[in-house]
């Protein structure tokens, strides 16, 4: 048994985009990303909207075929022979609680679907008991289980999605913005729930979220992405207190604090310059078009991740 449950090596995901008559340009949504997640560990993933976080999550689950790179799960390379088993043991909670739930199924059947697919029960009775248990875990009552997804509020739907992900008793879950649609109290419940499940079953998570307070709370380590690249990765408190990458620093400065006085006094670093397009990546460092520290060198070569402190890596020429 290897120490790491999941190992991602040089993962790339390029989407072909129509840019004119019979012409396509690759959109480099994920460009050479590597990381590991240990058993029972949570890796947080943050970064600008559109930087490729969801694509990383989906590609490591092979919902998209990787353009290049490897995913190694529990010591085995994920490929045609291992994919079926992998699909049961690795699950995802989707970002969008609206389009990810089948509108034609009742809530009970949505949650029951993975049980059916993986034949995880012996009798009808066992199936419905398990569904009840799962819905109970996420705080949906038994009276509500015969209703359809559209009859629920955003937060309620998100919890249904979580119950479905838990159904096949996975060991690894990609949580793609699982709490951003929830109010803070239910968010607290769900986070506690994720933490309890982790303690109980040794689950590992890739936890994608925009809310840095939530990410910091739940993650052991945090990776920061920018335009398809990981630009900084460190233990959670270390990243929060000793971020070194200019992008991470601006990200941290923009966190809205739930305190009116501090909010009024806060000094956001508003990033200048255009958000570059993944269709036209700048040469060298992807952040250089908006970086206040950029130098000539930054246009010449793309900085590689290098250790700045034990377990703390950053990709920047001018640290």
């Amino acid at each position: 048994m290897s120490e790491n449950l999941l190992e991602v090596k040089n993962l790339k995901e390029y989407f072909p985009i129509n840019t004119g008559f019979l012409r396509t340009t690759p959109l480099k949504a994920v460009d050479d990303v590597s990381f590991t997640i240990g058993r029972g560990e949570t890796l947080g993933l943050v970064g600008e909207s559109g930087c490729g976080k969801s694509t990383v999550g989906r590609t490591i689950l092979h919902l998209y075929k990787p353009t290049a790179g490897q995913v190694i799960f529990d010591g085995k390379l994920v490929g045609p022979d291992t994919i079926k088993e992998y699909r049961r043991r690795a699950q995802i909670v989707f970002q969008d609680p609206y389009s990810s739930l089948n509108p034609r199924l009742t809530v009970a059947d949505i949650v029951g679907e993975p049980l059916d697919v993986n034949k995880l029960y012996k009798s009808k009775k066992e199936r419905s008991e398990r569904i009840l248990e799962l819905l109970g875990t996420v705080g949906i009552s038994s009276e509500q289980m015969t209703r359809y997804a559209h009859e629920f509020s955003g937060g309620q739907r998100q919890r249904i999605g979580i119950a479905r992900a838990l159904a096949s008793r996975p060991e690894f879950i990609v949580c793609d913005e699982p709490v951003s649609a929830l109010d803070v109290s239910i968010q607290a419940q769900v986070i506690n729930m994720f933490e309890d499940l982790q303690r109980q079953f040794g689950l590992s998570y890739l936890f994608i979220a925009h809310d840095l307070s939530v990410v910091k709370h739940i993650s052991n380590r945090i990776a920061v992405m920018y335009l398809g690249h990981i630009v900084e990765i460190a233990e959670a408190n270390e990243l929060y207190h000793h971020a070194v990458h200019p992008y991470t620093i601006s990200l941290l400065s923009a966190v809205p604090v739930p305190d009116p006085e501090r909010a009024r006094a806060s000094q956001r670093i508003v990033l200048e310059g255009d958000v570059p397009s993944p269709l036209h990546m700048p040469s060298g460092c992807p952040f250089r078009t908006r970086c206040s520290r950029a130098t000539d060198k930054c246009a010449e070569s793309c900085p590689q991740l290098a250790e700045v402190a034990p377990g703390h890596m950053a990709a920047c020429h001018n640290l």
Partner: protein
Amino acid sequence: MAMLEVRDLHTSFFTPAGEVKAVNGVSFNLDSGKVLGIVGESGSGKSVTAYSVLQILTHPGRIVSGSIKFNGQELVDAGESVMRTIRGNKISIIFQDPMTSLNPVYTIGNQLTEAILLHTDRNKEQAKQRAVEMLELVGINEPEKRLRQYPYELSGGMRQRVMIAMALACEPDILIADEPTTALDVTIQAQILELMQDLQKKLGMAIIMITHDLGVIASLCDEVIVMYAGSVCERGTADAIFYHPAHEYTKGLMRSIPSIDDDERERLVPITGTPIDLLNMPAGCPFAPRCDNAMKVCLTGRAKEVRVGRDHLSACWMNVKEGSERGVIRTDEEGQITAIDLEGNMDVTAEGGSAQ
């Protein structure tokens, strides 16, 4: 007269299982150029309140009673033809779910220019130009290319920004933003919020900001209303709500916020118990089954909104009790209010509010 006046709004869904009372007597005012925040539990009726104002409720939902006045004009029962002149032009909405509100079979450009053509008097060329301009304003790179893409080709946050661009392109008097920034990272969120504030100042646009992000509420809102089970349980300035929450639900909400300064990862403190079943609303306070301080009176009736500070109202029997202990409210042995000292700093709101 406020630009928007909502009074005692009741909206229900008439489902086969019974009447789901999603909105239960909500009242509020909104003046031009102001930002009203709505927070509250998931499922508490925030979106349904917004849909009621625009009358875009889906079957089997409908407004049961109440009044919604826009610049003095009654909108409830005003009819489709009137509402069509309001929607998009005067009041526009950024939907919580960008995927279902963008049509998957049309390109972004198509949908954006259509909306602009429909709601402004621009011609086709100008509309397209405006579309590009708006995409740029919400921070979308290479807008000309993006206009040719379909919704599924964009990331969650980009779709949300397209929705924002669409809502703002028509320069509405009121913007209803239903969780507009949940899918956005903090730097883009900051950029969008600044754009909204800018339009609010330049055009006198009013904003109803519905969000779970209390950080956004804290930095943006003039007034905040807190909803629970279809009713307003507390309202006041952002400072009042954050620093002196008075309703037991609001207090629980504030306790659940994870702090980014906390390095110890202390276990979060959610409100225990499950949300109320809107099919079977109790006579008393809907929060009572989850409230640590629930008293006998809480089970029999709902507390009226009482003033607990300047610009600060709360509908909780605890506040009534504290008021009577301080001698500003008198109650009978059932706990019902019999007299109020209006000179004191507590009084029952003349607005009616959520109490029944």
